[in-house]
């Protein structure tokens, strides 16, 4: 294993990827396998071994257990994984577990809370059954409020709901209904994503084949605008393109990604990023487990970014935050003066009212958010 000692003081995030689901959702392109086909115990054991090896010497600031579907695991396995993760985090920081609202009860959430998990991310997606069916979700709208209630009873003070808008057949009214249903449950955080048709997913294939039709661009954007406004009214503020939180409830683990900070990803297909080196584990359960078993590297790809690439990535990621690029921080982190490095696009987009500069920060204006990629691409390379 590489020498971790020189980065010992670095505070990083730890992401653990559970590569299992009970059923695969029709829009999902994350790596996962049906849990019934595998010896989950052996894989979790391998993941714990990987975690032990790779986190040694790092100071871990945030924990995130995602997937796949962590709640699809047998409970003992899930609790053991949680216990192992918590062990590696000295500070009393954010620890998120993703849950499927159809797969949890009061007892489980109580146990998770007792083991040190302090944030739940509930894969709600929609409160409309027809949409849940379309997305291939195996829970009902009812499950969402129940799961959230169990969480509150268990003592969770930081709960996120994931929502998806622009599902085929949806309208401004139906989306408003979804938003209001979510707001009524008083979550502390909401992630709202416009449905993305990834290649090779069932909905991506159906769209390409003309079997389904995406919501038109104009309606999609009106839904997005509505999300920003409605949530703001409920005291849930946008802090990233698709993320909203009550003050002080922004997801710290994810903020670290957009700050281009370091993180270690554990499990099949998980990505790590440490000091300009990005590496990804084999997105294949067998190869992954075999590598861990043989004491070999689990990495399928490793990419070393040069300083300039690193600076460009930082800019692209920073600009997804409403707070944008903090010029002083950027300089400290990358060594580059962002205003000089990106002089051309900054000036161009300032003129168009798509970028603003204020208080030592450069950030996208509200009207730029929906077309962010067309702007960020000019920061992706110089």
């Amino acid at each position, binding site marked *: 294993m590489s020498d971790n000692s020189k980065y010992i003081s670095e505070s990083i995030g730890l992401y653990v990827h559970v590569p299992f689901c009970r059923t695969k959702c029709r829009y999902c392109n994350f790596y996962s396998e049906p849990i019934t086909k595998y010896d989950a115990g052996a894989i979790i054991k391998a993941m714990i071994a990987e975690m032990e090896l790779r986190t040694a010497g790092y100071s871990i600031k945030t924990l995130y257990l995602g997937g796949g579907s962590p709640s699809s695991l047998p409970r003992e396995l899930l609790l053991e994984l949680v216990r192992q993760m918590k062990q590696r985090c000295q500070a009393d920081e954010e620890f998120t577990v993703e849950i499927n609202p159809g797969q949890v009860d009061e007892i489980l959430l109580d146990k998770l809370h007792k083991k040190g998990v302090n944030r739940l991310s509930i894969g709600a997606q929609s409160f409309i059954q027809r949409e849940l069916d379309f997305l291939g979700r195996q829970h009902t709208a009812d499950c969402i409020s129940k799961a959230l209630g169990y969480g509150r009873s268990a003592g969770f003070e930081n709960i996120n709901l994931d929502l998806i808008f622009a599902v085929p057949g949806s309208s401004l009214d139906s989306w408003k209904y979804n938003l209001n249903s979510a707001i009524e449950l008083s979550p502390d955080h909401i992630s709202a994503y416009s449905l993305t048709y990834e290649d090779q997913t069932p909905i991506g294939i159906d769209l390409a084949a003309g079997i389904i039709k995406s919501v038109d661009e104009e309606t999609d954007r009106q839904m997005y605008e509505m999300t920003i406004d409605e949530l703001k009214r409920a005291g849930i503020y946008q802090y990233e393109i698709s993320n909203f939180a009550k003050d002080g409830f922004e997801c710290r683990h994810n903020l670290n990604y957009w700050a281009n900070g370091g993180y270690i990803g554990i499990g099949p297909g998980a990505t790590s990023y440490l000091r300009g080196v990005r590496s990804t584990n084999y997105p294949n359960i067998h190869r992954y487990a075999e590598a861990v078993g043989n004491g070999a590297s689990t990495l399928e790809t490793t990419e070393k970014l040069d300083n300039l690439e690193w600076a460009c990535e930082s800019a692209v*990621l920073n600009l997804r935050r409403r707070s944008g690029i903090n010029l002083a921080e950027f300089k400290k982190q990358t060594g580059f003066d962002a205003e000089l490095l990106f002089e051309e696009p900054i000036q161009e987009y300032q*003129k168009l009212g798509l970028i603003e500069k204020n208080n030592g920060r450069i950030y996208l204006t509200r009207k730029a958010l929906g077309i962010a990629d067309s702007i960020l691409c000019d920061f992706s390379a110089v």
Partner: protein
Amino acid sequence: MSTEHIRNFSIIAHIDHGKSTLADRILELTGTVNERYKKDQFLDDMDIERERGITIKASAVTIGYEYEGKKYMLNLIDTPGHVDFHYEVSRALAACEGALLLVDATQGVEAQTVANSHLAIENDVELIGVINKIDLPAAQPDVVSEEIEHVIGLRKNECFNISAKTGKGVPELLEAIITLLPPPPDRSGERTAAMIFDSHCDDYRGVICYVRVFAGSLTVKRKIRFMGNSRTYIITELGKFTPTMTAVDKLSAGEVGYVIANIHELSDVTIGDTITDDAEPAEKALAGYKPPMQMVFSDFYPGNNTDYSGLRAAFAKLAPNDASFSFIAHNSPALGFGFRCGFLGLLHMEIIQERLEREYDIDVVQTAPTVSYEVLTKSGKVTKIDSPSELPDVTKIAELREPFVRLEIVTTNDSIGEIMKLAESRRCRLLKTDYISSTRVMLEYKAPLAEIVYDFYNILKSVSHGYATMDYEFMGFEASDLVKMDVLVNKVAVDALSIIVHRSTAEIRGRKLIARLRKSIPRHQFEIPLQAAIGSKIIARETVKAFRKDVTAKLYGGDVTRKMKVLKKQKEGKRRMKSIGSVQIPQEAFMSILDSKDSE
């Protein structure tokens, strides 16, 4: 060899009527080209020529042939078949006493055949009618010979029926070249006069001049003089194309060959110039032939992978071997530094563009081709302009004149109606209708060049189901009610999109142009108004709507690498377009203003 045993001839043919095949067959039958070295269509020696099946530059081959026990020297001077290259045809014909008029037995006489035959007749070149492709089932040699008699005036019973492909009739044709075409006059005793009918530059040997000796002779080591510019040179090598270069000591009156004389720059050689002996010069130069006339102009700007100096260097290498192409530096407020280029026609333009890409790996942004105009100012001065941006202020213009051509269209009877409609929509005036056979007709129009130069031919082909052919010849400049139409993109006039149009069609063209432009400019982050204006009056308007959504919803740690790749690609895509103000305009947009797909 006495001139009695020399024949200098060309082959005049419409494109695809089999000229190159016949040339190959003649070379083969006379043993000029060894079977082993034979590439099909030997005379077309540029890749593009062979691919497009057209001959761009005239070439000359000397062929040895025995007839009735006597040795003859045949010089075949090749001519291009396309309308753009009239000029090259005329220089080839000027070097000949005779020509084969080759017509496809399945197609009949076409417009270019007529035009080139007239050119030959004007040059006192003797014609032999040859009907090719008689081996094809659809061949109608009798109908075609009637047409030849009717339109060109050659006797139908004197036409030769051949198949260049199978070789049938070609030996008889070879004999006819000896018996029917006149030998060059014997002027060997006179003072030396040789006409340069082509030239090219060889990296190792310098400039090679293709010449036809009319009087006297040329010998190696003699000091020669170019009568046009009075420069003198010592001949270092003389030779013939057999078809490879074969050195000889002497070229006598009546012969065709090449001259090498330590000439470094092609610009030192003027096609049509007369070479004479420096010590005993001819009294006067030979009569030249029609000089090339550039009909079409377009601006070339360096594309994304090219810089200005790279483009200049490529042009500097291309231009010397193409006397009919010109380029001058030009600066466009919208597109930056580039070149205004002049061409014989659109095909010529496409060929240059293709050669830039293929031979020099240079990509260009090119503006829509335009013709040249004459401006009579109120002060009484006449100037020629070849770009709408050069037009003086409208208050200073007394008269605008545009080029007119005599347009000949040969077609089948059933498409006359459609063609007349097309011609009328293009401001063409019918001069003459001539029924050349029971099923085919020749229409003669006076046409504004600007209306036919770009897409007319394609539309003509389409409305006549492929049967109609056309040719045109420059007549002169005449006053027209022309106006300059500006195009404003995002409220900024883009000079490279301006066009000069006839007032009567300005509004329709403006509307169509703007509609096409809207389709070719991608949506941006903001709304882009597109306007067509004459002076300050907006005659058409459209809007390129802003795109509303272009964002990755989810971006966390695992997706960064993939997303950065996508963003970089997106940035590259932007770079491939020309940026005018904040608007990215793709190359197609500059050409789209002439696209005819929905204009008819």
